[in-house]
């Protein structure tokens, strides 16, 4: 473990923590979805960092070139899927938020709890 070799992972961990915090601590449902976005993008950053090879280039093969070093294509493929999963969750989460607003008149959890308690 060295600073030069690991600082990027630590930076990513910091980003993940901010995203996770917004997701679980904020009361506003739309804000929570923003936190979810931050959290998932940070995880994608981690995979992309794992894929990077020093001195490498994007994994699009160059014909005739002998000793080109390519970064690892597999995590890139996986993350394309993860982005899609992320936007799908965002869409459904926001759809629910819109419906909650229509049904309760609010998207703040405190307020929603109060309304639920008042209506047995």
């Amino acid at each position: 473990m060295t600073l030069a070799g690991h600082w990027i992972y630590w930076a990513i961990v910091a980003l993940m923590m901010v995203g996770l915090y917004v997701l679980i601590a904020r009361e506003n449902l739309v804000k929570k979805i923003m936190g979810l976005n931050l959290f998932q993008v940070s995880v994608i950053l981690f995979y992309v960092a794992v894929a990077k090879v020093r001195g490498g280039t994007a994994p699009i093969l160059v014909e005739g070139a002998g000793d080109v070093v390519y970064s690892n294509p597999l995590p890139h493929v996986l993350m394309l899927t993860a982005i899609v999963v992320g936007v799908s969750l965002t869409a459904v989460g926001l759809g629910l938020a819109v419906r909650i607003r229509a049904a309760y008149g609010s998207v703040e959890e405190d307020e929603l709890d109060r309304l639920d308690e008042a209506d047995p």
Partner: protein
Amino acid sequence: MSEHLPVLQVVIPLLCAPLALLVRREAAVRTLAFAAAAASFAISVALLVSVLADGPISYPLGGWYPPLGIEYRVDTLSAFVLCVVSGVAAVLLPLGPGRGGHGLPSGRLHWFYAALLLAQAGLLGVTITGDLFNVFVFLEISSLASYVLVGLGSDRRALRAAFTYLVMGTIGGTFVLIGIGFAYQMTGTLNLDDLAQRLPEVRHKSTMLAAFAFLSVGVSLKLAVFPLHQWLPNAYAYAPPVVSAFLAATATKVAYYLLARLVFTVFGVAYVFGELGLGWLLFPLSLAAIFAGALAAIRQTDVKKLLAYSSVSQIGYLTLGLSFASLSGLTGGLVHLFNHALTKGGLFLAVACVVARSGSSRLDDWRGIGRRMPWTMAAFVAGGLGLIGVPGTAGFVSKWYLVQAALEAGRAELALGILASSLLAVVYVWRVVETAYFRDPGGPETRAEAPLSLLGPTWVLIGASLYFGVFTEWSAGVASKAAAMLLGVGP
């Protein structure tokens, strides 16, 4: 064509979901859903028979052999779980949203069937795959569909329950994704078998330990292991009743399967229970789930919520079986997966029957319902006896194995705990029975039995739970073979 059965098992429901969007007419979509679910069930039974006779099947998708490509892998355990999921789905899918309990206009019904088919296909895909990232993809398919289905309940609280389920489920899913990333970083592979083979070299690295932690916490969130169960009671309580039956019978069961698969097949019992000592964490959590769930169930005034808390308690039995890491313990856990799927599925369907008639699952509105809906309530009582674990019901078989496992492990206090928790189940089941049979409804008592289209499926599940309480060859028999395979002491 028979060599393609593993992939058809998942692709048939997957294919029928978009078809439902094109067909649109409800009657036709219902037939389509039933055909897909029935075909899927027939295939899983065929796979189970074949696996028991000839050993595991590997199916390389796209013709690319693992670890280059994705592999479908069927062994005794996955075939067993496939049968449970597709069997319950074959009973439930044709019901669609059921009658009442959902706020869906008729123009949107075909989308509902599509979502159910997607949820089923996702769960089957998680069970059958031999690739770790493919697990994540199909887990998210079923989760997304489930969040939506929960949100369609008629009470506006269903929307909030669905949102909470989405937030906690997504944290779980993202933790799984992080765990996969760590495991991949240390081994370079995503194939489960390949991973298991490469693990010994790196298993003492901190990254690998963290991979196990994130994977198991992520899956435990989806399984609703105490104390990560907060999403479950409201999700089951406010979802349309047929959806509650479907989720209770299948979703948590597949998450349990996944946990067992990771612990025993990939990371190995020596690592997880020997070096990490997971048992010390899992025993107390399981017991806490069993008692906290049952005690909460006793206090509920809504039958669906009561059943939901009972599920928290029953999930405790599942994880308890796992934490013994012994043959009878695991057999108990796996056979309980089977038995509880039938019992709880049937119980939620009984609630769906009542909701279809009276529109309410509140205990107060159930006074005297035993005389108005005798067949429905008879099914409820039979299912309730199964929750308690009375001899002759499937629940007894599960508890028999769990008590045996406790005694084998020399932990009589756990055996006593299992018996004591059954008494708590007596209390919460009795509350419903007493209200239904001995409370005066204060109105006319006309017979108004549920429609046969709902009552029939209810009795299929409850009847099966009674059948498998007596004849255990295909439940406990197969479960013990699967457990032996997981522990590496059998074929």
